[in-house]
């Protein structure tokens, strides 16, 4: 399979404090990669660098051959980001939020309206399309956040602890939407602390510790969720987050 995301010797420091140290990572099209690590391991910083929100102190990040530092606009049109923050405007309706972000990605006219209806149906919010986001529950906001991040049909989807604050029902709906994405169209990279969900959903696991990759393996080589937990504990010096 072709590579969609490649990181070469990526480091990031805040002042004298190194957060990422020489990260090399290659992600192929269609993979669903989990990035695990304790708090402060550098997971969110890594996602911010990969998604153009932050620049690496050293190294090169390329998405589909485009250098993230040199050509951020092209990269942004290829990626979607779902985080614990929904990136939604409270005083706009669900439909208005999607329409606004669609326009920001250069989608307009009937194509945009069709895409909005399709996504609202997919995240089971068609009945609430004209309601303001401020009236939504946390789970509904997160589902709408998925629709927002998929409006431009990104090739690469970053998920930064997307389950934070979701109840069981909202988590299941969220999972279903994620699993319904065609891996041929969308590669997924998820930062999480949830080892069971990682084992069930992802096909590759990367463990970060103190800014370095300490484990990288296909999920097929990990026998069970219990085994993943053992691997995590043995590789992470501070494992307070599991």
């Amino acid at each position, binding site marked *: 399979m072709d590579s969609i995301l490649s990181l070469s010797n990526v480091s990031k420091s805040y002042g004298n404090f190194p957060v990422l140290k020489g990260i090399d990572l290659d992600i192929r099209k269609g993979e669903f990669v989990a990035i695990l690590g304790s708090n402060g391991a550098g997971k969110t910083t890594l996602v*911010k660098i990969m998604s153009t*929100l932050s620049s690496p102190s050293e190294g090169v990040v390329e998405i589909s051959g485009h250098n993230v530092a040199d050509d951020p*606009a092209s990269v942004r049109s290829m990626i979607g980001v779902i985080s614990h*923050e929904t990136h*939604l405007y409270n*005083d706009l309706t669900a439909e208005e939020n999607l329409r606004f972000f669609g326009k920001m990605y250069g989608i307009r006219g009937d194509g945009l309206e069709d895409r909005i209806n399709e996504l609202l149906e997919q995240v089971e919010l068609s009945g609430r399309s004209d309601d303001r986001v401020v009236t939504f529950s946390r789970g509904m906001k997160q589902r709408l956040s998925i629709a927002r991040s998929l409006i431009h049909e990104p090739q690469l989807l970053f998920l930064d602890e997307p389950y934070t604050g979701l109840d069981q029902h909202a988590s299941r709906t969220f999972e279903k939407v994620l699993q319904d994405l065609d891996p041929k169209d969308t590669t997924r990279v998820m930062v999480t602390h949830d080892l069971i969900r990682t084992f069930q959903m992802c096909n590759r696991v990367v463990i970060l510790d103190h800014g370095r990759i300490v484990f990288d393996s296909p999920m097929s080589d990990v026998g069970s969720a219990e085994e993943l937990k053992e691997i995590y504990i043995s590789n992470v010096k501070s494992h307070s987050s599991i």
Partner: protein
Amino acid sequence: MIRILDIAAKDLKEEFRTKQMLNSMVIFSLLVIVIFSISFGPILGSSENVEMVAPGVLWIAFIFAGSIGLSRSFVAELENGCLEGLKLCPVSRAAIYTGKAVANIVLMLIVEIITIPIFVILFNYNIGGLFLPGLVIALGTIGFVCVGTLLSALTVNTRTREILLPVLLLPLVLPVLIPAVMATGSALSGASMGDISQELRLLLVYDVVFFLVAQLVFEYVIQD
């Protein structure tokens, strides 16, 4: 260009729906005019005295009402991490800045359109014309908002943004305030464009310079 208008339209749609900023700005602006008219009305006497004081009063109302609006301009973008969502879109940072500035200019112009008739009535002011005072006030507003929108983004992550913004903003907008007040007074009294051409040129240069500088530095202001 079209994305600038999309961002401005989104901001205005949110504001017209809640009217959080607009109501506060209008009420504050009117309060300033009423308080000044009550305080100075009896001692101003002749229309010449009114013409000397009133333009300053008008701009005090605009500037402080504007500061209230500007201090909230980026707050909505902080809720739910919307600014991050906007930064993730393939839109230039300059477009984000300009879109926000356009929305702020529209809001300030609405406040000014409501304030000016009340000002005219309370100060018993005889306006010489509408076009020239409108042009001066619009140019002054653009300069004020160009700087204010940038500083609003700069201070939005601080806990004391409501205090910090006017403290930083007022010294920086002095070069626009002085010609704006002078030209507003003259224009309201019926001066011709030739009479205030120097002030108009100053305002225009200030607007262009600050708009361009703000566009260039905005990327660094909103960087993580």
